[in-house]
C-alpha cells in the first residue's frame, strides 16, 4: 500500500472541551476507494473527529492530512474534493429542495444538471419543488446526501447517514453507498453507532470508544475475532479443566462448561478421548459462534449502551 493510496490520515488528533477529552490521539487512515466504517457508541467522539476532518472545529493537537496535504494549509482545495453530511441534516426550510441544491450549486460552481442527477440518486425528484420544512426527517436526510454528492466528491463523509430513516430507507442508503463506491470509486467514510449498519458494507473499520481508537483494521480481521469456540459439558468440570490443562490443553472453565478455541475435528476427538480415559463423563460438545455484535460490544463496553 503506497503513500498516495492513503487519502485521509490523522496523526494524534485530539480535541478537548475544557478538561474533557472528546477525541484522544486518534490515528485514522483511509485508503483510496474504500468504504471506511467509523464505529462507536453515542458520545464516543465520531462527530467531533469528523468536524475536525472538515475544518469545522479546531483540533487541540495533532494533524489532519487529506490527499496528502495538510488540511490547515490547503483547506479550500481539499474541501472542493470532499462532500459531507454531518449529523442532523442541513437545510433552508423556507426554500424547496431544488432551491437548497441550487444555493450549494452556485457556491460550488458546478453544472445545473448535477442537481437533477443527485435528486434522482436520492429519489427526491418528485418532491423537489416542495418546501424543505415540509419534508419528513428521512427526506431531509436524503437531501443532505444529495447536497454531499452535488460537487462530485472524491471523498464522501457521512456521519450517521441512516439516522431517522426507516429500515427500508437504511437499506437504500447502504445500497447507495455501495454503488458510489463500486461505480465511481468514491472513497467513503461512514460513521455509525450500530455495527449492523457497517458490517455489510465496510471494507475497513475504525472503532472509537471514549475518544480513543481501539481497533482499526480490515472488516475481515474483526470477523476473524468471532471464530467459533467449543463448549464441553462434563461432570466434575473444575477437576476436568485442571486435568486437561496439566497435559497441555489450552482450555478454560467458565460456569458449568469447559471452553476451548480453534479446535480442529481431530483435536476435538482427541480431547474427548483424553477426558474419557481420565474417567470423566462427557455430556455434550457444542460449537458456539460469537456474534460480531458481541465482539463489538466487548470492545466498546456493554454499559455504554447502543
Amino acid at each position, binding site marked *: 500500500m503506497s503513500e498516495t493510496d492513503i487519502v485521509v490520515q490523522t496523526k494524534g488528533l485530539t480535541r478537548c472541551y475544557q478538561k474533557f477529552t472528546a477525541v484522544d490521539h486518534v490515528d485514522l487512515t483511509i485508503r483510496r476507494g474504500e468504504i471506511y466504517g467509523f464505529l462507536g457508541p453515542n458520545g464516543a467522539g465520531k462527530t467531533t473527529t469528523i*468536524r475536525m476532518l472538515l475544518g469545522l472545529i479546531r483540533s487541540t493537537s495533532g494533524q489532519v492530512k487529506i490527499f496528502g496535504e495538510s488540511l490547515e494549509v490547503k483547506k479550500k482545495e481539499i474541501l472542493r474534493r470532499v462532500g*459531507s453530511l454531518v449529523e442532523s441534516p442541513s437545510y433552508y426550510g*423556507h426554500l424547496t429542495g431544488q432551491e437548497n441544491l441550487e444555493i450549494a450549486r452556485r457556491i460550488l460552481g458546478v453544472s445545473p444538471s448535477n442537481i437533477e442527477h443527485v435528486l434522482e440518486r436520492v429519489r427526491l425528484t418528485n418532491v423537489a419543488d416542495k418546501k424543505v420544512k415540509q419534508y419528513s426527517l428521512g427526506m431531509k436526510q436524503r437531501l443532505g446526501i444529495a447536497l454531499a454528492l452535488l460537487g462530485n466528491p472524491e471523498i464522501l463523509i457521512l456521519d450517521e447517514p441512516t439516522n431517522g430513516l426507516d429500515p427500508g430507507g437504511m437499506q437504500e442508503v447502504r445500497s447507495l453507498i455501495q454503488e458510489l463506491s463500486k461505480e465511481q470509486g468514491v472513497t467513503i467514510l461512514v460513521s455509525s453507532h450500530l455495527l449492523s449498519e457497517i458490517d455489510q458494507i465496510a471494507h475497513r473499520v475504525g472503532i472509537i470508544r471514549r475518544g480513543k481508537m481501539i481497533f482499526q483494521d480490515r472488516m475481515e480481521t474483526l470477523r476473524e475475532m468471532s471464530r467459533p469456540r467449543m463448549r464441553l459439558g462434563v461432570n466434575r468440570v473444575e477437576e476436568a479443566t485442571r486435568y486437561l490443562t496439566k497435559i497441555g490443553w489450552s482450555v478454560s472453565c467458565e460456569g458449568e462448561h469447559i471452553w476451548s478455541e480453534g479446535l480442529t475435528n481431530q483435536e476435538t476427538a482427541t480431547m474427548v478421548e483424553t477426558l474419557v480415559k481420565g474417567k470423566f463423563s462427557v455430556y455434550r460438545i457444542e460449537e458456539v459462534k460469537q456474534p460480531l455484535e458481541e465482539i463489538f460490544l466487548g470492545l466498546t463496553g456493554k454499559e455504554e449502551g447502543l
Partner: protein
Amino acid sequence: MILRLLLAEGLKIKRTWMVILPMLGALGILAVLIVDYRLRSEYILGKYPDTVTGFLLEAQIILPITILIGGSLLASLAGSMEHQGNAWKYVLALPVSRWQVYLAKFLILFFLMLLFSGGATVSLACLWKGLGLTGEVPWKTLAMGVTWPVIAALPVLAIQLTLSLRMNNQSVPIIVGVLGALFAPAFANWLPWSYVFQVVPVDYAMSRRFENDPSLWLPIALGEGLIFFIVGMALFQRQEVHS
C-alpha cells in the same frame, strides 16, 4: 467567488421577510409623517427656516429609529438563517473562505438597507407632492437625507451581524439592537447608535442634545464601521461550528 456567494445569498432571501421589511419601513415612515403633518402642519411650517430643512428634521422623529431597529432585524434574519436549519456545518464545509461568506452576508444586508433608502426617498417625495409643498421635489437632498443615516448605521450593522452570526438564539442580538437604538443616543453622541441621528444634511445646528454634523460623523461612522466589520470578520473566521 464573491459573486457566486452573492448569488447564493440572493436566493436564500427568497420568500423571507428580508425583502418585504425595507419596503414596510419606507411605507411606515410615510405613514408617520402624514399623521405628523396633518396634526401640526401650521406649527412645522412656522418653526423651520425653509421647507426642505423642516421636512428632513421632521423625518427625524421616525427615520433614525427605523434604520437602527430595522437594520438589527435584517441582520438577525440574515445571520440566523443558517442557525435555523443547522446549515453552517454544510456551508462552511464547502470550498469557500469564511471571510468571503461573511462579506457576502454583509453586502446583502447593506444592499437591503440601500433598498430601504430608495423606498424611503420615494416615500418622502410622495409626501412632498401630497402636501403641495412649494417648488420642485428636492430629490437629491431627500436621497441624502435617508442614505446618510444608513451609512452612519454601518458600525451598528457590523455589530448586529456579528452577534447574530455568533448566537444561536437571536433574542440577545435583538435586545442589544433595540436597547442601543432607544438609549445609546441619549447617553452619548460618540456611541455607534448615535451617529444615525447626527447626519442630517441641513445647515441647521439642531438644538437639544444632538450634535448634527454630517461632515464630522459620516467619516467617523465609516471608519468605525470598517473596524467593526474587520473585527466581526476575524471573529467569524475563528468561529467553531458545533451545531
